[in-house]
């Protein structure tokens, strides 16, 4: 899928299943995608489509013993799936950082925000003075007002935007090469969202980090991402550069999503919606997962996995009929 050697992160046929009563629920199925160096790669999809599961699987954070992960997760050419838990601990924060949806829940309420950032830097064996200098410097880079004072604030004393800045500071403190942002602005209002996006854009330049952006917000994708994968029910329906996806969507699902976007130019009474709901799938069922909602579904769609068709180095989609 293009960019073979330059890829920082490559998911190769990643599947994740969760144990449920009476079987396995397929949350992510056969996902293949690559994130290049310095690139912002967005994964979009509706709730429950498996995009957060991908993020957690890369970091191996979904370990409650009820999941089954198969396929390769290659980071800098090495399969993270082969890493021991101890090796994964060394990867987290140091090579791959991750920020989460709700920045209040994601910060520990009993520690000062600065300490939580410092805790990450201490892992690199630095001395106390150096660590705290770096924390204040990071706060400054995150455009926190009055950094020297804010490091002493508890999370509940900070606004939502400031908390997300603390999270980003914490996760960039050790200069990871990849930042996974799992719905980073969903819980924030639009003005704060714009500021956080600006910070993330700036970071790509300053820290030379790639960003894997998990979101359901196409506006966000258009604004910041280089490439995008559209997910549906655990599978990648279509992926390509932002231009390709927005201008020439090929997969019926992407097409319908585009039509469902509110646009200023069209003055239609109601937004178009997609009928039906996302199916609950077990891992063994073959066929296209969009079958039951697809306007151009045919006989093969029901029981044959759709083939992946390539339009360019970057653009591909999975559909029988297009």
């Amino acid at each position, binding site marked *: 899928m293009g960019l073979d050697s330059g890829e920082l992160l490559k998911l190769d046929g990643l599947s994740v299943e969760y144990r449920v009563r009476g079987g396995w629920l397929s949350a992510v199925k056969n996902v293949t995608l690559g994130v290049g160096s310095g690139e912002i790669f967005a994964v979009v999809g509706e709730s429950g489509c498996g995009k957060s599961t991908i993020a957690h699987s890369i*970091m191996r*954070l979904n370990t409650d013993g009820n999941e089954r992960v198969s396929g390769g997760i290659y980071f800098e050419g090495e399969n993270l799936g082969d890493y021991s*838990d101890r090796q994964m*601990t*060394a*990867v*987290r*924060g*140091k090579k791959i*950082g*991750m920020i*989460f949806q*709700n920045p209040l*829940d*994601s*910060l*520990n*309420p*009993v520690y*000062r925000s600065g300490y939580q950032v410092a*805790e*990450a830097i201490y*892992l690199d064996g630095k001395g106390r003075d150096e660590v705290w200098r770096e924390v204040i410097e990071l706060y400054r880079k995150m455009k926190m007002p009055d950094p020297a004072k804010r490091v002493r604030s*508890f999370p*509940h*004393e900070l606004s939502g935007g400031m908390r997300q800045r603390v*999270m980003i500071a*914490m*996760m960039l*403190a*050790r200069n990871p090469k990849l930042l996974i942002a799992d719905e980073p602005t969903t819980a924030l209002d639009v003005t704060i969202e714009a500021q956080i996006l600006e910070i993330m854009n700036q970071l790509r330049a300053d820290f030379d980090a790639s960003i894997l952006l998990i979101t359901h917000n196409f506006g966000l994708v258009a604004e910041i991402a280089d490439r995008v994968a559209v997910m549906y029910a655990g599978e990648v329906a279509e992926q390509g550069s932002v231009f390709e996806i927005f201008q020439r969507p090929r997969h019926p699902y992407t097409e319908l999503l585009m039509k469902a976007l509110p646009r200023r130019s069209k003055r239609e009474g109601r937004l178009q919606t997609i009928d039906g709901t996302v199916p609950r799938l077990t891992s063994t069922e073959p066929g296209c997962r969009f079958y039951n909602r697809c306007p151009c579904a045919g006989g093969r769609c029901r029981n044959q996995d759709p083939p992946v068709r390539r339009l360019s180095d970057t653009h591909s989609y999975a559909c029988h009929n297009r």
Partner: protein
Amino acid sequence: MSSYIVKRLIQGFFLVFSVSVLVFAMLYIMPGDPIDQVMGWKVSQEKKDEMRRFYGFDRPLHEQYLSWARKAIKGDMGVSVRTKLPVLDLMKARIPITLKFTGLTLLFDILIAVPLGLLCAYWKDSLFDRLVVGVSLFFTAIPQFWTAVLLILLFGVTLKVLPFNGYDTPLHLVLPVAAGVLGSFASTIRMTKSEVLEVIREKYVTTAYAKGLSKSAVLVRHVLRNAIILITVLISLSIPWLISGAVILEHIFGIPGMGGLMVNSIIMQDFAVVQACVLVITVLTVVFNILCDLLIGLLDPRISLSLRGGER
């Protein structure tokens, strides 16, 4: 913070006051009175009335209460009808013993049960988890006095390795404390386990892992540190139970604490002593609870914020 302490002290004062009134009233509602108890049926009614006047039992209730309360504040808890000794002297030697006994029970309960609960949560559904929860539930199901008797039979009578009556050496405390801990540690284990399981699911724990902390660092610094807040609350709530359990255990093991004194005084209807015991236990409970509230304030910055009156 200081206005909060003042508020809690005022609340505590009213609690102690209401309990003292209740205790006072309750003893007079009960049938029989101490003079009948001490004098026996052969003594004439005139003599009994004279004694009642001497001890003030003939005066109106609120007068009796006020004079008792006034003296109690000065430390004079009255005179035991049965032993003719000042109540204060009876209590003075016993309070520290009870405090030491319950304190040690609480300490060992926490030292044993909190780590076990943490490990049970960490290795949830493992053999270790099932074993610990099973064994602890077994001991909870047995009444505490029965555990105490079994311990006496095993270690005191059959094996003859530990003393089981009296309070002469630290060894004398081993069996009573063990009985107390066995009776209460199951609930502490379960409480710690469920609280830790709750905290483990919190998003900030995922964050802690994501920034690269090791499992043990996450478990101690982020999970236990937060779980300990609610554990402190629940332990502080269990203190009255601990003290009431101590009353029985002291009696069984012949420890000269407040428990033994109280049980005997209730049987003898020795009002002054019972009042003093209940009052001291109430005061201890109130003091413990205030201390726990302050401790929780120190542990949880969100609470200490409201303690400071909401200022930043």
